[in-house]
Structures are given as structure tokens and as C-alpha cells.
């Protein structure tokens, strides 16, 4: 469809132009313009400067310095900044009966945008569009695997028994690739009303997403075994078709709408090198195809008693898919090296998990109903009653697996063969691992969990306009949630109250103060099944018994927000916004205990935008999350701390600061200048506290080290001048500069100590690609455009 779109758009233009010629009135293209220009950029990406290591500690083996490729992805994250000729077309046509609008920009670039709209003023209208967008994630990644972006990424040298384990220790020999996606939406719609209250609308669009994204898999049986990161293929297509039929007049409206949306992924599974697996290949399951059908009904009745309006909406949707359930789960070893000290991990067999169904029929049915009744009672009084119902029922196939669970030292299922038995299923060459831990994959039957839920949200809001300059508002509401398939909190009730006061007594000052309070309570089941065995309930001797998931835990949340708008003198405008919201989690020992969010925004503006105006803006935001954990088992909330069993906690802080200056200046009638500069920085990280006061304060002698996360600083300068030579020609000259610096201790695993290839000792080696490791960049852009207006 992509290739056909441009000819279609051009053809449509001719047809529409012909139609407009038939218009009795002269069809005018007044206001249309065509622009052509050039752009030149200088881009510099951050490098993952680091070193590869062959030892678990930097002190026992020297680091081999290694400079990775530049990563320019963040510069081009959502934009195509390629050097070259740029163009913009803006055709505005209108006549007595018809109108036509075509807009196109970034022609030939990855962020091209085309939009054609037209129609007859009183009968119909149409639109055809195409919007492309790059999403560049991380460039200059490295991998020892070949086949990046395909359904199999592997290395031929990784066959079982490879004596040189761990292989591929030198990232200088690896292959370079980019993590990037390209999205394209192409579609159109047609509206017909025939100058009547009836209306009909049909729409269709296709969205494609293609490229390579990061994926990774752990190696071996435990998360301490290291991992491998690689490029996974993305080849998605979504086709959406909509129909809408309705009737609308001043007194009310009613409409029925239908949606059919089909998602397809051309690659359902992919294989990647896992040294612990049979043939060194492991399998990962990519997003499955699906189809969504939805029917909705909207209706509104206005001009009811007390100037009331009744609005209702009901929807029904069904999300379905169907695919075969793979029976063979690849079975890793217990990290046994072969030979014992230098060889690769022993590849083992395929475990037939014996699923109860060979196919999976995905089926999620969603029903919603909403009602709103708003009234104006006179005397400045207004009210609103509302109710929202949402029910999502997962009716997909319940699949029970006989094997393939995960339980350390757990009891075997009677149906589960012993380690050392002959090969099972279709795996011909390998038997069960001889490891004593192999039976951790061989537990009793375990089914998938089909999560369903429903929500009832109802409330009342009221407002009283005391006079033209004062208004009081408030509201109460309740949200009840019931869940199936989530054992920790099957029911949650949330009650909300808010009040607001608006004042604009003074001509040059208006103020708004809002306070809100939310109370959430859940029926919490502390003995929910937790951990690695789906059948083992938590006991008071386990940490999870005292833990609460933050999205359902009991909490009280007060919030306050103040907005001031003040014009202290002619040409001065000032606005201040301040908001504070705290959440106090309660009835728990471990988990998130508190969070606090504060945000302040200030804008000061002086001048007349038609002559000279300068605007200063500032923002400060700080968010703090407090969490408490328990190290060791057994544990209880009241247990004292000792060297092995102790509480520890984190304070996770995130800050955001922004300052900017924007100036608009019209020094001459034909000259317009604009300059903007802004600076944004994000900060924060994790601060640790430990209840273990022995030794260095950490468990087993390990240090507690605070670290920073996603600390960034960005400066942007934009300068632009437009000079109007005459009524037709305008020239634009611009310059932009951007500087972005990134610092994150979590990413120093890539760039500081163990870049790309990481050796943690024993059989725990990891192979990283460097995704997102250092998105720092520098950018300079110079551009010129000449625009002809006709």
C-alpha cells in the first residue's frame, strides 16, 4: 500500500482539482505554499568506552581496553536528521462547495508525513494519510552472533563440547548492528452526512513496524548464570477497519461503531545461542497474532429537565487468537562444564512438558457500560452523576503442564521421570541431565492462570458558582475492583474525595486550589501462592507473607494543587503551579512503604508577541519512593536483625529540572526572529540502608553502595529567522545545537568495567550488546528554506 499511496494521493489531487473546476465559484488556492530547503548536520554519538575482562574481579586480571562504536540513536530517536534537500507542500484549496487540503513534509525521509483532506462542505469529506516514524533505540551494538534481525541468531563455533569456553571474549571481533524500528501508518477515512442529521463514517488503516529490538535470555538455570543479549526481529502489521453510523441533532445523538483490528507477526518464535541448551539453541516466543472485534453504542439526550444531559456508552469487545502449544521445553543443565574446568556447559535434552491442550485459544471478552448525567440547576449550581462498569473476562484455554515447573529441591510428580532416564519426547540425542537439581523442572501439574477482573466506578460531583468570580466544586467517588486469577488481592476498594476553589475576583489574578484524598483498601491474602512453586502458599516463616504489591496495598493518598495566574502589569504574565502528592502505604512490613511527589512550574512572560516577547520557564519535580526489604529466611516483621537475617531498605529518588528562555522578536515588518534555549536535567538514584551492622554493613561482607540511575543533562539552543522578501517569497535560516550527557551506574556494566563480554567467574559469563549503554550525543544543525506562497 505504501508504494501505491503517493500515486493515489497525486491522482486524488487531480480528481479533486477537476471537481473543484466544476465548482461554480472559482476554486481558490489562496494561502498555499511550497517550501524547499537544505539541511546539514554534525552528529557525534557517545561511545561505550570500556574494557573487556577475563576475570571476575578487576584486581585479578588486567582489563583489556576497548572502545566501542558511537551510538547516535538518541539523536535520531524519532526524527530523520539525514543531510540533504528538504521539502514542504501545503496546498489549501477552497471553493463555494468543495475544499481540498494537501500537506506533505520530509518527503523521502524516514519521518515523512502526507495528509490529504477534502470534501463537499455539506455532504461528505475524506482523508488519506501516511505517517512514517523511525524509532531508533541504540546504534552501534555488538554481538558475537550472526543473523541479527532474523528468526535465528547463533554462532557456528558454539557447538557442544567447544573446548574454548567461554568463547567470544574479544568484542573487537564482534559484528556491529543497530537496534532500530521503522513505523508507518497508512490509511484513510470517508464521512458522509448528506447534509442531514444522519452520518456514516468508514475508516481503514495499516500500521507496519519493522526492524530490530533488544532481547535477551538468561543462560543456565539461575539468574546468577549470566545472560546473552541480541537483536530480535520485528515485523508487525496491524490492520484496523472501522465503521460508524449515527444520528445527531441538537437534542441528542446516537451512534453505533464497529472496529475490526488484526495484528500479525511474521515471526512467531526465534532461536538464539544458549550454551546450556541442546545444540546450543534456545527458543523465545514473540508476540502472537491476534484479532480484536469491538462494537460500541453511544447515545446522548440533551435539554432534559434542569438543563440536564444524559450520556451513555456501551461496548463489547472480543480479543482472540489461536496457536499451537509447543510441548517441548528446552531443559537447561545445572551449569555443568564439560570438561569440568574449561569446557562448555553440557547441552541436554528437550523436556516434554505434556501440555493438556495442543492448541491455545486466546479469548478475552470485555464489556463496558458508562453513564453520565449532568445538570445545571440554576443559581450557579451544577452536578454530575457518573457510573463506569468494566468487565474483562479471560476465557482462554486453561493449559496444564505436567512438567517444566521450577522448584528447587521440590518433590517430584509421580509422572515425572527420574534424572538419567532415556530421552523424552522428540529429542533424540540427549538424556536427562545428571545433575541432582534437574528435578527442579519436574514438579506436579501446574496450570496457567487466566486473569479476569471487573470494576465498578461511580460517583457524584457538584459545583456552585457563588458569583462570576468565585466557584466551589467537589466530588465523591468509589471504585471497586474484583479479580480472578490474582491471589494476593481479589478485591480492592478505592474511595476518593476532592474539593476545589476557584477565585478570579481581581482582574489581574486568578487562583485555583484543589485538594484530594484517596483511600485504598484490599482484601489481602498473605498466604497466596508465591515463589517458584505455583502450589506453595506463603507461610508466616517467609518474607512474602509480610509483603504487599504496591498496586493493591492499602494506602492513603492526600494531594494538593495550587495554580496562580497573575498579570501584575501590562505585557506581564506570570503563572505558578505547585502540586504535592503523598502515598502512605499501610498494614504491611515489606514493599513500597511511602512515596512523595512534588512538582513546581513557573512561567514568566513579558512583551507583545506581535513585537517582542520573552518567556522564561522553570520546572522542578522530585519523586521519592521508599522501599523496605528483608534479607534471609525465615523472617517475620518483628524479627531482630543479625548478620544473616536483617531488614534493608532503599530510597529511590528521581528529580527533573527544566529551565528555558524563549524570545520572539519582530524587529522589522518583514523579519521575524525566534530564539529558544532550554536546559533539562534528570537526577537521582538509589540510597541503601541496612539493618545489618556487622562487618561492612552488608550481607556476607558485600558493600552497600549507593548508585545513580538515569542522570542526564540536555541543553538545546534554537535560532531561527524568517525574512519575507515579498508577498510570495520567504526565506528561513536556522541553527540548532543540542548536547546530551548520560550517566547511569547500572549501565557501567557495559561501559565501565565489563563492556559487552562479561566474565563473572565459573560458568556465569555474559555476552552483552551494549544496548542503551551510552546515549550521550552532540548535534549541530544548519538549515535554510525558501518558501513560495501563492
Amino acid at each position, binding site marked *: 500500500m505504501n508504494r501505491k499511496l503517493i500515486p493515489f494521493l497525486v491522482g486524488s489531487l487531480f480528481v479533486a482539482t477537476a471537481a473543484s473546476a466544476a465548482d461554480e465559484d472559482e476554486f481558490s488556492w489562496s494561502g498555499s505554499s511550497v517550501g524547499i530547503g537544505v539541511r546539514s548536520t554534525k552528529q557525534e554519538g557517545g561511545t561505550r568506552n570500556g574494557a573487556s575482562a577475563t576475570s571476575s574481579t*578487576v584486581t585479578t586480571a588486567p582489563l583489556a581496553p576497548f572502545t566501542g562504536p558511537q551510538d547516535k540513536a538518541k539523536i535520531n530517536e524519532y526524527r530523520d536528521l539525514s543531510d540533504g534537500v528538504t521539502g514542504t507542500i*501545503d496546498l489549501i484549496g477552497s471553493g463555494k462547495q468543495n475544499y481540498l487540503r494537501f500537506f506533505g*513534509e520530509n518527503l523521502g525521509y524516514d*519521518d515523512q508525513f502526507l495528509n490529504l483532506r477534502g470534501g463537499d462542505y*455539506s455532504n461528505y469529506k475524506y482523508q488519506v494519510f501516511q505517517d512514517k516514524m523511525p524509532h531508533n533505540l541504540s546504534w552501534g551494538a555488538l554481538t558475537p552472533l550472526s543473523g541479527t534481525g532474523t528468526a535465528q541468531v547463533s554462532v557456528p563455533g558454539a557447538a557442544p563440547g567447544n573446548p574454548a569456553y567461554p568463547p567470544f571474549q574479544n568484542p573487537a571481533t564482534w559484528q556491529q548492528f543497530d537496534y532500530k524500528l521503522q513505523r508507518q501508518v497508512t490509511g484513510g477515512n470517508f464521512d458522509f452526512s448528506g447534509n442531514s*442529521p444522519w452520518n456514516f463514517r468508514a475508516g481503514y488503516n495499516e500500521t507496519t513496524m519493522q526492524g530490530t529490538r533488544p532481547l535477551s535470555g*538468561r543462560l543456565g538455570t539461575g539468574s546468577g548464570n549470566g545472560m546473552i543479549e541480541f537483536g530480535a526481529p520485528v515485523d508487525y502489521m*496491524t490492520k484496523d477497519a472501522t465503521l460508524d453510523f449515527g*444520528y445527531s*441533532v441538537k*437534542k441528542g*445523538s*446516537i*451512534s453505533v461503531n464497529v472496529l475490526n483490528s488484526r*495484528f500479525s507477526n511474521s515471526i512467531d518464535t526465534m532461536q538464539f545461542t544458549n550454551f546450556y541448551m541442546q545444540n546450543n539453541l534456545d527458543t523465545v*516466543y514473540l508476540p*502472537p497474532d491476534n484479532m480484536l472485534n469491538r462494537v460500541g453504542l*453511544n447515545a*446522548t439526550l440533551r435539554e432534559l429537565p434542569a438543563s440536564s444531559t444524559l450520556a451513555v*456508552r456501551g461496548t463489547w469487545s472480543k*480479543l482472540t487468537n489461536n496457536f499451537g502449544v*509447543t510441548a517441548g*521445553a528446552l531443559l537447561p543443565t545445572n551449569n555443568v562444564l564439560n570438561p569440568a574446568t574449561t569446557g562448555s556447559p553440557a547441552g541436554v535434552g528437550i523436556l516434554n*512438558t505434556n501440555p493438556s491442550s495442543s492448541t491455545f485459544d486466546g*479469548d*478475552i471478552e470485555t464489556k463496558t457500560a*458508562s453513564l453520565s448525567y449532568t445538570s445545571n440547576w440554576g443559581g450557579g449550581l*451544577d452536578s*454530575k452523576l457518573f457510573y463506569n462498569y468494566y468487565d474483562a473476562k479471560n476465557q482462554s484455554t486453561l493449559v496444564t503442564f505436567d512438567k*517444566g*515447573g521450577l522448584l528447587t529441591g521440590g518433590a517430584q510428580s509421580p509422572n515425572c521421570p527420574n534424572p538419567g532416564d532415556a530421552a523424552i519426547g522428540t529429542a533424540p540425542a540427549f538424556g536427562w541431565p545428571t545433575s541432582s537439581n534437574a528435578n527442579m523442572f519436574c514438579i506436579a501439574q501446574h496450570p*496457567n*492462570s487466566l486473569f479476569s*477482573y471487573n470494576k465498578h466506578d461511580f460517583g457524584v460531583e457538584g459545583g456552585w458558582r457563588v458569583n*462570576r468570580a468565585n466557584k466551589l466544586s467537589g466530588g465523591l467517588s468509589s471504585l471497586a475492583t474484583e479479580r480472578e486469577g*490474582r491471589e494476593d488481592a481479589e478485591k480492592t476498594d478505592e474511595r476518593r474525595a476532592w474539593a476545589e476553589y476557584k477565585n*478570579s475576583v481581581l482582574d489581574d489574578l486568578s487562583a485555583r486550589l484543589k485538594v484530594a484524598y484517596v483511600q485504598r483498601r484490599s482484601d489481602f491474602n498473605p498466604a497466596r501462592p*508465591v*515463589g517458584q512453586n505455583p502450589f506453595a502458599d506463603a507461610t508466616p516463616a517467609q518474607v*512474602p507473607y509480610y509483603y504487599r*504489591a504496591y498496586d493493591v496495598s492499602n494506602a492513603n493518598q492526600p494531594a494538593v494543587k495550587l495554580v496562580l495566574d497573575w498579570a501584575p502589569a501590562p505585557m506581564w504574565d506570570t503563572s505558578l503551579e505547585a502540586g504535592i502528592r503523598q502515598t502512605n502505604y499501610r498494614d504491611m512490613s515489606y514493599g513500597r512503604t511511602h512515596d512523595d511527589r512534588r512538582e513546581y*512550574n513557573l*512561567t514568566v512572560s513579558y512583551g507583545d508577541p506581535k513585537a517582542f516577547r520573552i518567556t522564561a520557564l522553570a520546572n522542578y519535580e522530585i519523586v521519592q519512593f521508599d*522501599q523496605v*526489604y528483608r*534479607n*534471609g529466611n525465615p523472617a517475620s516483621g518483628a524479627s531482630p536483625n543479625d548478620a544473616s537475617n536483617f531488614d534493608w531498605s532503599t530510597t529511590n529518588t528521581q528529580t527533573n529540572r*527544566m529551565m*528555558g528562555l524563549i524570545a520572539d522578536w519582530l524587529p522589522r515588518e518583514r523579519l521575524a526572529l525566534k530564539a*529558544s534555549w532550554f536546559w533539562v536535567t534528570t537526577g537521582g538514584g*538509589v540510597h541503601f540502608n541496612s539493618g545489618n551492622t556487622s562487618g561492612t554493613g552488608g*550481607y556476607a561482607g*558485600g558493600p552497600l553502595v549507593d548508585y545513580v540511575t*538515569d542522570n542526564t543533562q540536555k541543553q538545546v539552543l534554537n535560532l531561527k529567522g524568517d525574512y519575507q522578501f515579498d508577498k510570495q517569497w520567504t526565506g528561513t535560516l536556522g541553527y*540548532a545545537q*543540542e548536547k546530551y550527557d*548520560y550517566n547511569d551506574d*547500572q*549501565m*557501567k556494566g557495559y561501559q565501565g568495567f565489563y563492556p559487552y563480554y562479561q566474565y563473572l567467574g565459573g560458568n556465569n559469563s555474559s555476552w552483552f550488546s551494549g544496548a542503551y549503554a551510552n546515549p550521550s550525543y552532540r548535534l549541530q544543525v544548519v538549515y535554510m528554506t525558501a518558501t513560495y506562497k501563492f
Partner: protein
Amino acid sequence: MRNRKQLSAAAAKVLVAVFVFTGAAMQAALAQQPTAQAAGAPPGPEVCAACHEAQVQSYATSIHGQKGHPRSPANAGGCVACHGDGTEHVKAGGGRGVGGIRNPSPSNKAMTADEKSQVCMNCHSSDRHLAFWDAGQHKKNDVSCSNCHNPHTDRSLNNDKMLRADVPAASPYRTTVRQLGYETCIACHRDLRAQINKPSHHPIIEGKVQCHNCHEPHGAMTPVMLKAESQRDLCLTCHTDKRGPFIWNHAPAMENCATCHTPHGSSHNRLLAQKPPALCADCHPGGHTHGLYDGRGTIPGVNPSNIRFEGSGCINCHRQIHGSNAPSSAFGRFFMR
């Protein structure tokens, strides 16, 4: 099965009956409505242009100035359709508010938001996209049509909706010359100006996602005027690969995407509300024996590093966090394949 078909057929019949009945009732009501009064003697655009040339010019080239549209102001006297009879205004020699002239601009405190919106609603109340205007937050919060739209604005640069952009926006160099929807919204939603400039953001400042792609500013039944029945339904409109259905579900991902993501902007990749592993630890304390901190140091590179903190944290291994179809609980239930 048969019962379900019968039920569906019955429901369809009821729906059609309700639709036809309601439509017929409304048609009857419409027939009883008085027709628009013919334009009288009030001054028309040619008179107003003497003082308000730019406004009249923008009116003439906009849809409001086209007589081909039966409902356009051009067929109802021109300027008078929105601004009222200007006879006294002209007699008095003009002036702001003089002669009872009606000016629904945002800066006019003499009119309430409802009164300003009513100027537009006289013609637009039956527009389909305004069906839920009364139920929405904007009307309740005294936002009038003219707070966002200016029918006299420059329509070039794809600004067909005649949106205002009165408050300057800060953004990096962008490749689009279009006026973008967020430039209108930040006039009131000032906190978003900082949010959408955070390192991880939807491509709003780049013009590839517009506020109205997710929110319906003209009113909606859903809280925060989302364009779908729930936040998750909205997200899955674009992120169709996350729909599933999966054999193994991650319950919070099925109930509310905002449990983990913050849609307007974040310091962390993928619009995460916190950086893993801290984010995951808000719900999962002891999946691993000693929790996150197992005594091997906290950050990478420290003697030796803890891989659970490194890079993407938990997501390094639990990549299929939205759901998995792997055929075992060892990999599928824990979203590792």
C-alpha cells in the same frame, strides 16, 4: 450455542429498534425547531473589515466564510452569527465590548466559559465529536471552545483545527513545521511541558503522537477523557503486539499499564515509572532467595557485580514481561521466553 445465537439476534433487533426509535424521535424534534432567522440589517463583514481587516480576511478564507456550507456563518449574516448585532458597536465607533458586541475570546472575563462555548454550540452542538461535551472535564473546568480554538488564526502549516498556540513551547530541533496539538494543551497543562521533554517520552514534541491521539478534548465518558474504555485499551490501540492473549499473563499488565509506565515522560527507558529492579521490587520481594540485594554488592563493577541490578535489571532475564507463550512455568510463568 443456539441460545447464544438467539440472544445475539435478539440483542441486535433491540439495538436496531432503539436506534430507529430514538432517531425518529429526534427527527421529529428537529422538525419542530425554529429555523435560523434570516439576516437582518446588522452590519456584515464588509463593514467590520474597516476596522478588523485581518479577522475578516481569516474568516473569509476559512470554512466559516463559505456559503457552500449550509450551516456556515456566511449564510447567517457573517460576523453577526458569532459576535451578535454590531449596529450599536458601529454607531459608537467601536471599542472593546462597546455596543453589546459579543467577544468569546479567552481573555474576556465578562462572559463565562459556558456563554462563550454557547456561541460555538449554536451551530456545532450536533457535531458527532461533541456528543460527550457535557460529560467531559473541560466543560466542568470552565474551558470554553475559544480557549483552544481561534477561528481567526492562521490555518497554514496543517492547522485545520484552528488551534491556538499562545504559550511558547520549548522543544529540541524538530523536522516538522506543523503546528502541533501539544502547543495548545500546555497553555493549561503546564506540568506536561517538562514531562514531554524528559529523556523517555512518546514522540509528542516530534509531532508523531498528538495529545488528541489518546485524549478526547471535546469530552469523553472515561476518566481523564481517554479515547478508549480504559487506559489499557487505549495503549493497546497502538501497542498491538502487547495484546496477547498469552498463555501466561502478567496480571498488572492486563489491568493497568500505568502500574509500571508513565505515559507523558520519564527519566527511564520505555517510559517506566521507576527503573528496574526497584520498579519490580515494588511487588516482588522474594522471588530470588535474598531479594535483590544478596550480598554481592549492589552496582555492577563492584566486587563482583550483582547482575540483577545491571543494565535493564530484572528485564535482562524476564524480557517477556507483558506475557509469554513458552510451554512451561519455568520459562513462561516467569516471562523469560
